[in-house]
C-alpha cells in the first residue's frame, strides 16, 4: 500500500521539528538523525495505525520519544557497564556536539532527568499543550506540569543567574571566553 502524497507531505513538513526534538533529547546531532530515521521508517511502516484527522505531529513525536526512551535505557546500561557515567560521556564528545549552538543550555539540559527534559522540551519549545505532552509521554497532565516546573527550576539553578545574559549562541560564549583569555 502506498502512503498518500498528502500524508507524505505532512510527514516531511514535520521532519525539522522531529530533528529539533531529537537533538534536544539526545544532545547529539548524529544520534538524533538516526532517531529521526528510525521514527520515519516506523511511521511509514505503521501508517495504517495513524487515525486520519488526529494530530500527526503528536503521533510522530510519540514514536520518536518511545524510540529514544528504549535506546536511552539500553545505552545507559552499556555505558554504565563501561565507565559508570552516561551523562559525562555525552558532554565530553566535543567532535559530536561541536555543530550545536547554545552549548551551555544544552549541557544544562543534559543534566536533567530525562522525564523532566522531555516534558520541558515538549511544552517549552515544541509548543505542545500540557494535555498533548501528557499523551505523548503516556502520563497524567499533572505529572507533566510538575516535571516542567521542576525542569525549569533546575535549569535556572544550573545556568548561573549572573551569567544569564551570556548564555546562548556560541558566538557570544566564544566572544566572552576570548575576552577573558586576553586579561
Amino acid at each position, binding site marked *: 500500500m502506498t502512503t498518500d502524497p498528502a500524508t507524505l507531505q505532512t510527514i516531511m513538513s514535520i*521532519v525539522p521539528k522531529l*530533528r*529539533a526534538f531529537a537533538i534536544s533529547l539526545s544532545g547529539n546531532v548524529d544520534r538524533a538523525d538516526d532517531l*529521526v530515521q528510525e521514527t*520515519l521508517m516506523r511511521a511509514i511502516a505503521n501508517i495504517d495505525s495513524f487515525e486520519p484527522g488526529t494530530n500527526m505531529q503528536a503521533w510522530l513525536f510519540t514514536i520518536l520519544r518511545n524510540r529514544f526512551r528504549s535506546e536511552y535505557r539500553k545505552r545507559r546500561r552499556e555505558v554504565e557497564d563501561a565507565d559508570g557515567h552516561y551523562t559525562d560521556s555525552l558532554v565530553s564528545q566535543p567532535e559530536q556536539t561541536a555543530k550545536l549552538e547554545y552549548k551551555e543550555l544544552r549541557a544544562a539540559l543534559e543534566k536533567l532527568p530525562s522525564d523532566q527534559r522531555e516534558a520541558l*522540551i515538549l511544552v517549552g519549545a515544541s509548543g505542545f499543550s500540557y494535555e498533548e505532552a501528557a499523551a505523548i509521554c503516556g502520563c497524567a497532565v499533572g505529572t507533566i506540569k510538575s516535571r516542567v516546573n521542576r525542569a525549569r527550576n533546575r535549569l535556572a539553578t544550573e545556568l548561573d543567574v549572573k551569567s544569564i545574559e551570556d548564555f546562548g549562541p556560541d558566538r557570544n560564549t566564544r566572544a566572552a571566553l576570548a575576552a577573558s583569555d586576553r586579561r
Partner: protein
Amino acid sequence: MTEKPKGPDPTMNNNEAVAGAKPRSGGLDRQVQAKIGQQLRAMYDEVVDQGVPDRFVDLLKKLDGAQSTPKSEEESR
C-alpha cells in the same frame, strides 16, 4: 481559610542569602524563567529552520517507493 500561611516564612530563615543580592523568588526568578524559555525556543527553532536534510527527503521517497510497485521507485530516481 487563613489569609497568610502561618508556617515559617522561608525568606525569614534565609536573611543572609537574601541580603546576598540573589533572591530565589520574585521578579528576578521570573526574568530568568522568561529568558530560559526564550533561549529554549531559540535553540529549538534554530534546528527547525535548517529544514529537511536531503537524507530524509531521499529516505521518505525510498520508503514510499518500497511500499508501492518497484516500477515507481525506478521512476522517482
